[in-house]
């Protein structure tokens, strides 16, 4: 689980330009602080699909709240 979270954090920093110093595993990704948008959510879906083989297309937005919730969804749904 930690490995999944670290890979996600690395992706947010390198591909989505998020400042790692304010990004914790429970930080709200789409709130005021990080401020991701719907274009970023498509990039997250693509990264999770390519990296972990888990499809997040059409899943509830609660699963995208933080690195914690995305990692939990991946753990629950990976083959």
């Amino acid at each position: 689980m930690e490995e999944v979270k670290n890979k996600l954090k690395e992706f947010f920093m390198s591909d989505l330009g998020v400042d790692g110093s304010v990004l914790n595993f429970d930080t709200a990704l789409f709130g005021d602080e990080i401020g991701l948008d719907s274009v970023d959510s498509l990039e997250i879906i693509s990264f999770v699909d390519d990296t972990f083989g888990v499809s997040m297309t059409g899943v509830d937005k609660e699963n995208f709240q933080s690195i914690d919730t995305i990692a939990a969804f991946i753990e629950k749904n990976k083959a």
Partner: protein
Amino acid sequence: MSTMNIYEISERIAQRPPFQMIEKVTELVPNESATGIKNVCVNEPYFMGHFPGTPIMPGVLIVESCAQLCSLVIEHKPEDLDDKLYVLLKIDGFKFVKPVIPGDQLEITVNKTKGGGVIVGFDCVVKVNGNLHAKGSLTFTSIPKDSLGK
């Protein structure tokens, strides 16, 4: 690897003059990469205003040329074209290293870097006479046509 002339290109993309910005495809590997040509002519309408007496091809139209070549690389299922449209989602790190002027022949190369699922990404390089004039990355997604305007 295959090639395409203007007639074959027009069968695959919806854009038409004066907004058709790839005239020949010299190399095409479906879903992977392509090299295409755009000849830049002084008669193109945008040169009237960009700029009067000093024609320079607008950078956004160089990006559009790259985008049209990318759309030729993405393989569509025929049934998808009825209800889906591939649209530009993101432009990253584009640099316009040297101006493009009438008489230049753009040799554009695009290579797919990610996707196949919800998004498709490409690295694009634009050269004239072998010299780099522009480069950057483009990302596309598909949307349902019936979602437009809603």
